[in-house]
C-alpha cells in the first residue's frame, strides 16, 4: 500500500456527447451511504435541462434512422465497455447504495447483461409488435412501431445503476433519444455511465445525463413542448402527479412510476412499447388481370 494521493474525478454532466459542468456553476455534495463525502456533482438547472432536450432532438433523426442492426451493435458495444470498467462500477455502486462488494457486483453484472439483452431487441421488436393486417379489401396494410421521439427519463432513486440501465436501455434501443435525470442521492454511477456511452460509438445526444434535484430538473422537462414522453420511475407520488399534469400540455406519453422490488428480474417488453408509436401504412394492391397491369 503506497501512500500516494489518488487523483479524484470531477464528475460532469453528459450532454450532446460532451461533458459540461452545469451552466449554473452549481454543485452539490454527494456522500456514500454512511455520509462520507464522495464528490461534488453538478446541480443541474432548468437551462441545463433545456440544453439537453435540444441535444436529444438533434440526435433523434440520425439515431431513429439508423438501422436496427446498427443500434444493436452500438448497445452491445456499451456492454463491452462496461465490462472493462466493471471494477469501477462495483466500487461506485457499493459506495452509493451501501452494498457489499459482492452485492454491488451482482448489480453491475445484471446491468451489463441488461445492455446485452436490449441490444438484441433492437432488430426484433418490430416483428413482435408490428405486422401485416388482413383488411377486408384490396389493400396492402402494414403496422410498424416507431420511436416516439425525445423521452425524459427520471431514473429510479434507489437502484443507482441497475435501475438506471433498466430504464435507459429500452428507451434508446427502439430509436428514441433520452434526457436522463440521475438518482438525486446517488448520481455518480449515472455520470460515469456517460463516460462509457461516449466511447461506445453512441452518437452524441442520444443519451444525455443530468444530476441534481429531480424535482427541479423534471419540471421543465415535463412541461417542455419538444419532449414527447416521460418516464416517471424516479418520481414520488406527489411529484409524479404534478409532472403528469404538466405533461398533458402537449400530450406526452407518460409512464407512471411502478413499484419494482427487484430490478434483476428479466423485464418484459413494456418499457420499450411505452415509448413506441404504431404507424399503419395502406396501399392499394390492385389485381393482376389478363393484361397483367396493376391498379
Amino acid at each position, binding site marked *: 500500500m503506497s501512500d500516494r494521493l489518488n487523483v479524484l474525478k470531477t464528475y460532469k454532466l453528459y450532454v450532446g456527447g460532451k461533458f459540461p459542468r452545469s451552466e449554473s456553476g452549481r454543485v452539490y455534495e454527494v456522500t456514500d451511504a454512511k455520509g462520507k463525502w464522495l464528490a461534488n456533482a453538478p446541480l443541474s438547472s432548468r437551462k441545463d435541462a433545456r440544453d439537453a432536450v435540444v441535444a436529444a432532438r438533434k440526435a433523434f433523426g440520425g439515431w431513429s434512422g439508423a438501422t436496427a442492426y446498427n443500434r444493436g451493435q452500438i448497445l452491445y458495444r456499451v456492454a463491452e465497455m462496461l465490462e472493462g470498467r466493471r471494477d469501477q462500477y462495483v466500487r461506485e455502486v457499493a459506495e452509493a447504495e451501501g452494498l457489499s462488494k459482492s452485492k454491488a457486483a451482482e448489480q453491475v453484472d445484471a446491468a451489463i447483461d441488461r445492455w446485452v439483452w436490449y441490444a438484441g431487441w433492437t432488430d426484433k421488436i418490430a416483428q*413482435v*409488435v408490428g*405486422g401485416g*393486417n*388482413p*383488411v*377486408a*379489401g384490396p*389493400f396492402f*396494410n402494414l*403496422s410498424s412501431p416507431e420511436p*416516439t421521439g425525445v423521452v425524459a427519463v427520471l431514473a429510479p432513486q434507489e437502484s443507482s445503476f441497475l435501475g438506471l440501465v433498466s430504464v435507459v436501455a429500452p428507451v434508446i434501443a427502439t430509436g428514441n433519444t433520452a434526457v436522463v435525470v440521475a438518482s438525486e442521492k446517488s448520481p455518480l454511477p449515472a455520470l460515469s455511465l456517460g463516460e462509457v456511452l461516449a466511447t461506445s460509438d453512441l452518437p452524441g445526444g442520444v443519451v444525455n445525463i443530468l444530476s441534481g434535484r429531480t424535482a427541479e430538473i423534471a419540471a421543465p422537462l415535463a412541461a417542455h413542448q419538444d419532449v*414527447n414522453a416521460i418516464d416517471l420511475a424516479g418520481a414520488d*407520488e406527489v411529484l*409524479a*402527479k404534478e409532472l*403528469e*399534469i404538466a*405533461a*398533458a*400540455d*402537449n*400530450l406526452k*406519453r407518460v409512464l*407512471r412510476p411502478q413499484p419494482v422490488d427487484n430490478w434483476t428480474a428479466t423485464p*418484459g417488453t*413494456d418499457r420499450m412499447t411505452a415509448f413506441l*408509436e*404504431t*404507424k*399503419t*401504412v*395502406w*396501399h*392499394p394492391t390492385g389485381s393482376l388481370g389478363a393484361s397483367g397491369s396493376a*391498379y
Partner: protein
Amino acid sequence: MAPVFDYAPAPESRSIVDIASSYGLFIDGEFTEAADGKVFKTVSPSTEEVLAEVAEATEEDVDRAVKAARKAFEKWSALPGSERAKYLFRIARIIQERSRELAVLETLDNGKPIKETRDADLPLVAAHFFYYAGWADKLDHAGYGANPKPLGVAGQVIPWNFPLLMLAWKIAPALATGNTVVLKPAETTPLSALFFADICRQAGLPKGVVNILTGDGRAGAALIAHPDVNKVAFTGSTAVGKEIARTVAGTRKKVTLELGGKGANIVFDDAPIDQAVEGIVNGIFFNQGQVCCAGSRLLVQESVQDELLDSLKRRLSTLRLGDPLDKNTDIGAINSAEQLARITKLADLGEAEGAERWSPACELPENGYWFAPTLFTNVTQAHTVARDEIFGPVLSVLTFRTPDEAVAKANNTPYGLSAGIWTEKGSRILAVANKLRAGVIWSNTFNKFDPTSPFGGYKESGFGREGGRHGLEAYLDV
C-alpha cells in the same frame, strides 16, 4: 358548368326507423329518467326538426351507471371468453340485420349522407363487433402474456361525427376483453347509441355490461373523473383530450385518446391526377370534412398545381349537396349550428388573412346547417386555415418543390394522425411514409378503415391505438 342530366330525387324511406318521442338513460339494463328529470332535444341537422327528447344525465346518474357496470363486471369478466364471444357475434349479426334502419337513423340524427351511413359506417360497425368477438376467446395468443386480465369499468366518451362507429370502436374491444362499459354519446347524436341499447337487449347481454348515458360535456367529465372507473377512452377534440389527461393524472386509470388532426395529403408530380383528385375529395369532403383524420391540407408539387386544381375544381362542381337521405347526395348537413359557426368563423378568418377562397356554385337548403365545399389557395404555413383543425368541408392548398420540403411541411403541425401520399414511384412512397410523423398513412388512397387496422395518432393527436391486435392493449391490464 351546367349539369348535362339532372337527378330526380331518390330519397331513402325513413319509415324503416321508428323513433320514440323520448328516451331515458340506459342503466343496468333498464331505461330510466335522469335523477333530476331533465331532458334535452336532439334535432335533425338537415331540417332542424326535433327527432326526440333524451334524458340529460347528472353526476348522480353517472354514479348509478358506474355502480351497475361494476356489479356486472364480476360475472362478465369471469365468463369464458368463448361465451363473451358469442354475445358479440350476436350483436354483430343483429347490427347487420338492422343495418338499414340504423343507417337511416344515423343519417337523420347526424346529417351525413345515407350513401355514407349505408356503405361505410354501418358495414364497419358490424365488422368491428365481428372482429373483436373472435378475439374474446383468443386473448392468450394476442401477445400480452398468458391470461391477460381486463381492467374493470371503462368510461367511454365519443364524438358526433361517426356516432355508432365510434361506439363500436369503444365497446367491442372493451367487452371482448371482459370489461364492462359506461358510454356517453355526443350531445347532438344520442340516438344510435340508444338504439344500440335495444340491440344489447335483443342479444340478451347481461344487465349492466353496457350502460349508455346521454348528456353534455358535464356528464362526460363526471364519468372520466369517477373514482371507480378503471379505464378512460375518449375520441374528440385535442383541447378536451388534454383536460382529460390532467384529470386522470396521479390515478391508476389507463387512458387512450383519439384526438384532432390536420392531415397532409401530398400529391407528387407523377401522381395519376384523376385518382388523386378522387382521393383529395374523399379525404376532405367525406362526412363534410368532420373527420379527425381528414386530409385537410393539400400539399401539391408546384409543377402540377394548376392542372390538379383545375381538375379538382371541376370535380367539386359535380358534388351534390342536399337532403342527406337522398341516395345521390354527396355532401350532407353540418352536424350542428355550433359546428357550422366554427367552420364559418375559421373560413372567414382564412379570407381575412389573405388566402384565396373558392367554392363551386352550390345552392344551400334554407333550413338546417349547411356549408359549401370550400378551397383555399395561396395558403402559407402561417395561415390559421393551415394550422387549426376546421372540422368541416374546407381544404387548404399549399405547394412544395422537393420531397424533403413536402415532408417538412406535412410534419409542421402539433398533430400527427393521418397523411396521404400520391405518387407512382414506390420507393418515394416508402421513403416519405417513413418520415411522416403520423399514425395512419394512406398511399394512393385515403380514408380507408378496417377493424383489423390499428388507428391512432402521434403527438397531440393522442395516444393508444384502436383496431386490430393493438386495440386490445387499451382494455387489458398489461
